[in-house]
């Protein structure tokens, strides 16, 4: 009797120890990645990174053209993807909430949310790059927009559903048509959450590399032409990190640090927008 009790206690202690160890491992991976980024990336940070073009191997330079390219692609992708995502999310939350179409779209959207991004790149290559005959910034932005839509749709729907129905009923009772009720009242009540969705989408596409490899391609030089290949930070990191040149690798680490800081900052801001001061 006694030994059985001791065995159960022992098993429990082992399991608890393992769970603490697992948590420790998970957290230390995060710390290790961030430390490596700081260790390799901070040394390369200088004004030149933001003012000079990507260099040929063996000479100094910066990341100005990929930084600009990433910014342009992100802005364009958000401009295309956000309206579509918001409108579709509105349909799911307001008009078709319990309908069959909404259920199907919801299911498909959740799948698109985790679909492999490289396949999105292949898709855009097939429908945009191949017919046009050349790689272009537009194609890259379209590929990113396809990734933006499900993120924005999902958060828009979730946030609109959190708006109390009493508000909707109050609006209806004073004779406000549904479209106006949605735009004037539901959107306003859910605004913070919807902005969060856009921030999360930006965070998601900031580091996306795979869909850009064969849509926007890359460009060694300064280019603002979105109808031509354009450099982007993730693709330049990919190219430079796998190169044998030490100064290219250093620039890759610096670029990686910039991307990570941006992404982490965006997700922390997004988090604080949704539940300010909520503590458990």
């Amino acid at each position, binding site marked *: 009797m006694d030994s059985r009790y001791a065995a*159960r*206690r022992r*098993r*429990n202690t082992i*399991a*608890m120890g393992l*769970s603490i*160890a*697992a*948590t420790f*491992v*998970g957290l230390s*991976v*995060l710390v*290790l*990645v961030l430390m490596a*980024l700081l260790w*390799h990336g901070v040394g390369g940070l200088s004004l030149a990174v933001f003012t000079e073009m990507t260099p040929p191997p063996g000479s100094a330079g910066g990341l100005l053209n990929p930084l600009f390219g990433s910014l342009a692609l992100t802005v364009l992708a958000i401009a295309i993807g956000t309206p*579509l995502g918001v*409108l*579709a999310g509105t*349909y799911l939350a307001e008009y078709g909430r319990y309908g069959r*179409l909404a259920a199907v*779209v919801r*299911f*498909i959207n959740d*799948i*698109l949310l*985790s*679909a*492999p*991004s*490289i*396949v999105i790149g*292949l*898709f855009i290559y*097939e429908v945009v790059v191949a017919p046009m005959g050349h790689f272009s910034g537009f194609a890259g932005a379209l590929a990113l927009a396809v990734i933006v839509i*499900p993120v924005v749709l999902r958060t828009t729907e979730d946030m609109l559903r959190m708006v109390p129905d009493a508000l909707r009923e109050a609006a209806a009772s*004073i004779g*406000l*048509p*549904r*479209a106006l009720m*949605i735009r*004037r009242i539901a959107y306003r009540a859910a605004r913070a959450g919807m902005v969060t969705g856009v921030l999360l989408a930006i965070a998601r596409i*900031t*580091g996306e*590399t*795979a869909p850009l*490899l064969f849509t926007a*391609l890359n460009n060694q030089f300064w280019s603002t032409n979105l109808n031509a290949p354009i450099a982007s930070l993730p693709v330049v990191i*990919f190219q430079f*990190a*796998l190169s044998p040149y030490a100064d290219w690798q250093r620039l890759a680490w610096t670029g990686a640090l910039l*991307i990570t800081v941006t*992404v*982490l900052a965006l*997700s922390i801001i997004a*988090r604080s927008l949704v539940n300010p001061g909520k503590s*458990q």
Partner: protein
Amino acid sequence: MSEFALQAGGVSRFRPMSRQEALGRLRLGDLVFRGLTRAAALAVLGVLGAVIIALMVGAWPALREFGFGFLIDETWNPVTERFGAIAPIYGTLVTSLIAMVIAVPVGLMIAMFLTELCPMWLRRPIGIAIELLAGIPSIIYGIWGLFVLAPFLQQTLQPALIALFGPVPLLNTVFAGPPYGIGVLTAGLILAIMVLPFITSIARDVFEAVPPVLKEAAYGLGCTTWEVVRYVVLPYARVGVIGGVMLGLGRALGETMAVTFVIGNAHRISGSILAPGTTISATIANEFTEAVGDLYTSALIALGLILFVITLIVLSIARYLLLQLERRAGV
């Protein structure tokens, strides 16, 4: 009162109009907006359909040329234009398997820590930190894996594995040297790190959804924490946990950049998990821009189609299971 509403709606701001006209306008506006949102929702369905159709059209030349043999042929020779998909498919499955073998137990253990052991004030910070792991882009894991993890494994874990399993039959082919650093095992480890947050956060959510009464009853009987988790929480949360695992698997199968950095890109099937290999996504990422000839491009798109179909099935199962769970919770 309703006049005021119309004013506020901004409809009759410019010229006076009859009540009839104003109501007509509002009705029209409502119809247009409804139509717009519906069209956007349909567009999402359209995107998925278009992806599948575009991939099928692009893959057609290769599939016609090689037929069913494409799925089981190991050759990948751009010069003679003979392509087979089994090596990348094998690499995708094996790396994902390694990732799940590591990430599932670790993820469940972390979820158990967060729901049963962790002091209240620590729960949120640790939860957020684990979720930040999910936010780090895959290219960052790739560069970290290549420059930090791979050299480390080459010097420590891999020689140890080779030495440990060298005398054991069967296992000595699985862990056959030399220790390259990069290879299938390293890719699997990176994938494990990347899917860990997804599994952890879903497992935590479904563990938290277990009614406290059940747990309290078990504690009341004198169960230890481990017994409560093992015999009460896990069976209750089973469907959700499987859904979360499938979701993580879907991510692991399609993950591209991190794997491309560390897998070594060798088009062959090796019995050893220390050897370089390739995955579907890594092959596409590495070779697509350099692919000359329609057949080469088409073979790569066919690989993409296979990947998409596999992930589609896995993700559908995951979402279906999680949906069942929501229904049961009565949302």
